[in-house]
């Protein structure tokens, strides 16, 4: 399958590609005992809470179906809704910019900040600006971005990248956070303890100074309502609202899929999102704004960065329903062990494994669709019913086809699969092949089980035995019954 004319997220900018493949990065992460303990504790706590928050909503199944349907409606008529949004935002005094990819979006935002004369911007927690590497682009232009979400601030001060969509510093414990603050936070009390309240207070004092001095803020958006031109940010700390209301200039960067058609649609998503992400009935702060508030300049940057290419694949486009709740991460046994950084993208976990390869093109993230046992826990947890396992399987075939197209000879795996399919297509060939498994009885004869195997099955035998093959296949036994 090719997607001519569909731009994917460009290389060399943003955070959608890792340096090493998932298996390699995950194996390294597994060696970090502290990380594994932090993750196991955090994910199991939130798993239990989410299950309870969802269970108390009687019509959850209907809400979930409605969420999926609304998003599918948006995706089917994205062109119409985007133009409607642009018209409404413009009518309310905002300026709308269109960005094909990360580079264009970064250039637009940088130029907008420059034109204000400011050398500092405060930021609302946003996945999309992490996706495009906006902080790095601003820094390159001599502009200092300051993350105001506590966890994002920890990540930024630690010169780190987020490892979770909702709780980006999930891989850090409080002792590590204290060290980061002491090292990186200007004006911090040198006797700072690692008590969570003290750490929060230190961040609060630091950020309060920034809120009052900053002239420009940058945000993402959880939702944009096409019929009214209203944008929405959902958060817990209230720092986002400070950014949205205090500075003179507000710049919002938003993926083109974040739309809902009508104001009323928010009824569905403002129930689905908090319960799925923080396991709250309602999140503490929900901010809405329509165009430019009096005395403020407002700019909206609409970003593609591989989204249209994703939309072009009928079996992959449902990934664009995602509302970034992170429920799939918290229930994923692979994410729980490997952690977010192993995925190499700021979108980790099951949704990352289907979204990142689509945004970049599968050639740039070929290991991610295989980073799952297809256990299905993500699909069950997803509030907009994205069938992630089915999509993973589909993307695996795109990876295989992409590799086959770029290599002259079939890979050993492709050759094995072809041979297996040829054998299994014919019952007589298959019967003979099954009988040949008996030869494995020789390697298993000493312990009555197999403890060592040649590559690539050796990867099985590092931690697992295999039973010694039987003397007789089932079909041979059946034939002489």
């Amino acid at each position, binding site marked *: 399958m090719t997607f001519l004319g569909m731009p994917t997220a460009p290389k060399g900018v943003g955070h959608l590609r890792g340096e090493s493949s998932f298996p390699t990065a995950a194996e390294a992460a597994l060696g970090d005992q502290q990380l594994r303990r932090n993750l196991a504790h955090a994910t199991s706590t939130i798993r239990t809470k989410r299950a309870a928050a969802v269970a108390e909503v009687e019509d959850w199944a209907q809400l979930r179906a409605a969420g999926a349907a609304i998003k599918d409606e948006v995706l089917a008529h994205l062109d119409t809704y985007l133009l409607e949004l642009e018209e409404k935002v413009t009518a309310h005094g905002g300026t709308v910019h269109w960005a094909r990819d990360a580079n264009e979006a970064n250039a637009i935002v940088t130029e907008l900040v420059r034109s204000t004369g400011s050398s500092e911007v405060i930021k609302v927690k946003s996945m999309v600006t992490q996706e495009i590497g906006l902080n790095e682009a601003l820094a390159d232009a001599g502009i200092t971005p300051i993350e105001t979400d506590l966890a994002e601030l920890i990540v930024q001060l630690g010169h780190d990248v987020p490892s979770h969509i909702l709780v980006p510093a999930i891989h850090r414990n409080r002792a590590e956070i204290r060290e980061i603050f002491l090292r990186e936070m200007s004006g911090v009390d040198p006797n700072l303890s690692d008590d969570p309240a003290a750490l929060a207070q230190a961040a609060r004092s630091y950020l309060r100074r920034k809120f009052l001095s900053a002239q420009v803020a940058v945000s993402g958006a959880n939702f944009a309502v096409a019929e009214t031109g209203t944008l929405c940010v959902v958060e817990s700390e209230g720092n986002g609202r400070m950014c949205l209301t205090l500075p003179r200039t507000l710049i919002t960067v938003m993926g083109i899929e974040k739309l809902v058609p009508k104001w009323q649609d928010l009824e569905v998503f403002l129930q689905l999102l908090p319960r799925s992400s923080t396991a709250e009935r309602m999140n503490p702060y929900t901010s809405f704004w329509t165009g430019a508030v009096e005395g403020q300049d407002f700019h909206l940057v609409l970003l593609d960065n591989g989204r249209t290419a994703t939309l072009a694949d009928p079996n992959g486009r449902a990934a664009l329903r995602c509302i970034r709740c992170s429920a799939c991460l918290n229930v994923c046994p692979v994410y729980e062990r490997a952690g977010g950084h192993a995925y190499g993208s700021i979108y980790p976990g099951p949704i990352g494994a289907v979204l990142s390869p689509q945004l970049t093109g599968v050639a740039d993230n070929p290991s991610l669709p295989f980073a799952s046992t297809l256990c299905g826990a993500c699909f069950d947890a997803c509030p907009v019913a994205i069938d992630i396992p089915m999509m993973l399987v589909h993307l695996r075939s795109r990876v*295989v086809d992409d590799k086959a197209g770029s290599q002259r000879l079939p890979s050993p795996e492709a050759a094995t699969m072809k041979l297996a399919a040829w054998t299994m297509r014919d019952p007589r060939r298959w019967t003979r092949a099954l009988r040949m498994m008996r030869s494995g009885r020789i390697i298993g004869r000493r312990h009555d089980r197999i403890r060592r195997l040649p590559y690539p*099955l050796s990867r099985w035998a590092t931690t697992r035995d295999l039973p010694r093959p039987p003397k007789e296949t089932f079909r041979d036994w059946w034939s002489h019954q």
Partner: protein
Amino acid sequence: MRVALFITCLADGLVPEVAKATVRLLQRLGIDVEVPLAQTCCGQMHVNTGYPRSAVPLVANYVETFAGYDAIVAPSGSCVGAIRHQHATLARQAGDLELASAAAALGGRTFELSEFLVDELGVTDVGAYYPHRVTYHPTCHSLRLLRVGDRPTQLLRAVEGLELVELPDADQCCGFGGTFALKNAAVSSAMLTDKTAAIATTAAQVCTAGDSSCLLHIGGGLSRQGAGVRTVHLAEILATTRMEPLP
């Protein structure tokens, strides 16, 4: 009712006792089960590894082999999941709409063992005798693709002499995932370690499940660790009686 056994490729070649137990059990319940030997494999390995087109002839073979039966029973939630949820789609994507509709119809008549016993035959007490302490691992595909729910434990609770102990974090995947166990061996092994540790806390003598593949994985880990816990397929437990102990 004409009933056929879908052996599954794994049981056929590597763990034939599971298929033999399924036959014994069904015969004991008065079912004259047939085993058409034209059957091969459901094709799930090909699909889930990224080779869906290679699986299409296997779908065709499945449809051709089993079209004449009223019910097809398999001792595997995963294979039945593939037949029910992948076969018709594969045929449709290959442009064979006739095969797609035949595959969809056949998917509706293909049952995982516990589904067949509880829903189709309406039995939970199959007259088994198995005097052991047993814990049950609900495999992901039986749990989330087929939604077998408590059917397997209903069957186990009715087994005479069997002491069923609950497995902590039972719904957590064992880490097998087909080729995942090879491609992501480290994460797979980490998941397996947590599963075997959970099994150890139950002090069970036997861990059972409805899928030979997951049991091969869990059993492989238990065997390597020298844990002293055996893995036994649900079909083998249900086939065991006072007169016919587990071979």
